[in-house]
């Protein structure tokens, strides 16, 4: 066990855990940030996606000891002062979910894409998002939501 300093959604905090524990487990079980989901434990499904210094990262295979003092953003950190992130809003507008379990991971992957590529083509979206699984099959709506958020951002510029 060790004290590890974390910066999660802009808040500084310390956890006392084995540094090899997965970030996913720490977020969910130590910090009660359960929006980040377990789906496979082998970085194949994207349900556990968070941003580390803005980079999309699979928290299930990321040891918490390796992200000390880095900026960790989870789905809970996207909403600012009651305002949804444009992509969260677009998911609602595009009805881009059924059971919603993959949704946080999808949104975090989508946010990472839009931050890097504000005007992604359809192919770029498919390529970037291909590591995220939705078993309900709402992929086309998720693509539409990402395009909608990109358009909205463009409009705001």
């Amino acid at each position: 066990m060790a004290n590890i300093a974390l910066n999660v959604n802009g808040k500084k905090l310390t956890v006392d855990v084995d540094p090899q524990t997965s970030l996913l487990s720490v977020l969910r079980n130590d910090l009660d940030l359960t929006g980040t989901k377990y789906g496979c434990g082998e970085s194949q499904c994207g349900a556990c996606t968070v941003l580390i210094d803005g980079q999309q990262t699979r928290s299930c295979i990321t040891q918490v000891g390796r992200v000390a003092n880095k900026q960790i953003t989870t789905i809970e950190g996207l909403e600012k002062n009651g305002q949804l992130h444009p992509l969260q809003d677009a998911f609602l507008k595009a009805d881009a979910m059924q059971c919603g379990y993959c949704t946080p991971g999808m949104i975090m992957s989508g946010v990472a894409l839009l931050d890097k590529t504000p005007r992604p083509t359809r192919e770029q979206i498919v390529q970037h998002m291909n590591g995220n699984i939705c078993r309900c099959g709402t992929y086309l709506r998720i693509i539409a939501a990402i395009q909608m958020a990109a358009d909205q951002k463009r409009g705001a510029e």
Partner: protein
Amino acid sequence: MSEFLEVERYELFQEPTYNFGFDRRQFMKVFGGGLALIVPLTSLVAQDREQGESGRGGFNRDVPQEIGAWIHVDQDGSIKVYTGKVEFGQNIRTSLAQAVAEELHVPVSMIRLIMGDTDLTPFDAGTFGSRTTPTMAPQLRKAAAAARETLIALAAQQWQVEPNTVRIVDARFVNHDTTKSLTFAEVAKEIKVVKTIPADVKTTPVDQWTIAGTSVPKVDGRDYVTGRHKYTSDMRRDGMLFGQIVRPSKFNATLASPSGPAQPKVTEGFIVQERDFIAVGARDPQSAARIVKGINENAQWQAPDQPGSAELYEYLRKTASAAEGRSRPVGSVVAGFAAADKTLEQTYTVAYIAHAPMEPRAAVAEWTGDKLTVWTATQRPFGVRGELAEALHIPANNIRVIVPDTGSGYGGKHTGECAVEAARLAQTTKKPVKVVWSREEEFTWAYFRPAGVIDVKSGVKNDGTITAWEFHNYNSGASAIQHRYDIPNQTIQFHPTKAPLKQGSYRGLAATANHFARESHLDELAVLLKMDSLQLRLKNLKDERLRAVLEAAASRFGWGKPLSGELRGAGIAGGFEKGGYVATCAEVSIDRRTGKVKLERVVEAFECGAIVNPVHLQNQVEGAVVQAIGGALFEAIEFSNGTILNPRFSRYRVPRFSDVPKIEIVLVDRKDLPSAGSGETPIVGLAPAVGNAIFAATGKRLRSLPLAPKGLQGLSG
């Protein structure tokens, strides 16, 4: 509807252990006051009889339970709907609220649904079989209409006017003779009324719907996009332990030494063992995993030899029950074959596949004295309560099962293993326990869509008239084994066999397998006769609703128009199940070098009566098409001697973004017909349409699902 009903043995069902009626006093004890409108289950049963369909085992025909659902308008004006149905992503929390809001003339946001809680909601057999929309929605609509009329009468009484001068507009009671208006709270504030809905209650006709029939957004969508929604796997209770199960080395394995493995001394957790069940509870999941690892190092399991996927189809045939499957022959197939110009005999197979819901099975169990509460993701809360009662030898009325809105199921979460595991651990440890299955456990210890072998033999005249049809399904199931084509001579049978893996419900049950065999075979007949595949179907089909979707899909797709490009082909398939009619057209292209099959475009027409929520229906149909891609092209469980060989997403491929073609959905809205469910039937058409398209592109006829897990071989020449 056909009178012929084949029992679908894979739709797991358990009778309720207890049957407690509610009386008026109990209601008021629960609710305190207000107006409760009760939907008697008898009317649900009657509706179910009218809706007779294939694949339904008649289980709820004589359920002695009295109540199907109820609506409660509290004295503060809040409106709550209680139903034993559960939300799995099919958006019934929204569509049922729409139905109730419509009748009460209030916004959807005023309606709260209490779902799947065995202490609060009336008995329900389970959320499956596309039953919520055709049975629950109309009943809640009636209850809401009756509530409206009762409240209007009370408002009229307050004003001392005739009830027919009072209406509800935008959640307020208004009377045109005065300028006064009353809120729900003002009307309901002092009442204590329990009523059963009258038989003659009038609901709003479909052509006057203003809330139902529209695309109301998911009612609690914001909780999902912000990560706030708590699935079972997200729950936490004070002092809760994390549970993990020590899994046997293989299916059907037992501990070699009856006293169990030498248990490591642990200080950081608990070990619970009862015969072959060994489970661990610890303060955090890492400690639980460490203890399990230690036990696994010592445990000695023994297991019998078991069949594998290599000999699966042979095994199913070999172990088929000697008893003839239940069937009612039509005409004489002998005469039908004699009258045929050509005959065709082929065998089709479908592999075992997994549901792989993104939220694996999860349960949180907590004991308070002798009372047990379990939160769990199941499609059958009352069935799981029965399983818990049986496993733990306690009365069912000491158990409360609550189902938080769940991370999908597709028919895969009917059983309660995980709930029992958590409850057993909590019983010994005297602490709340959460068990969440790993992905590997989900792929191994749940159950699968049954594999099957289907033999089809048909006779046809040169003009395309089918004269004889013989259809034998081994193991995969009887759903949609009957069809809508007009064939004078038929023998159709389902043959139970031994099952090498645990198998059960899956979205659409065997309807996918039976449609795959039937609609592939029809395509083969069309090829044999050099006829257009759609024309062959229409020639043997009088059912106007199936004709309508076939024609709608073909028209949107541009059926019969030549495709540009090498190794490209189009296929069509149609079908009927659970009150829904579906037709699917698919276009594929094949990479000559790699043999990879690419689904380019899918057009699917679907009709399930009057549409309740167009966007959510479209979303369900699209989702079914996408999920179907996996079973059609590449999903298959591989197993050998009691072990699953591909229990991970890295080894078991499911559809991803890059697999999704252009999908066009044509929704046929029949406002003149009652609404049927849509969760299942839209999945059945894709596999045969794709198989037929691959044949059109390459001349290769594929008769096994999945069609091309490793691409097509032998195309390079």
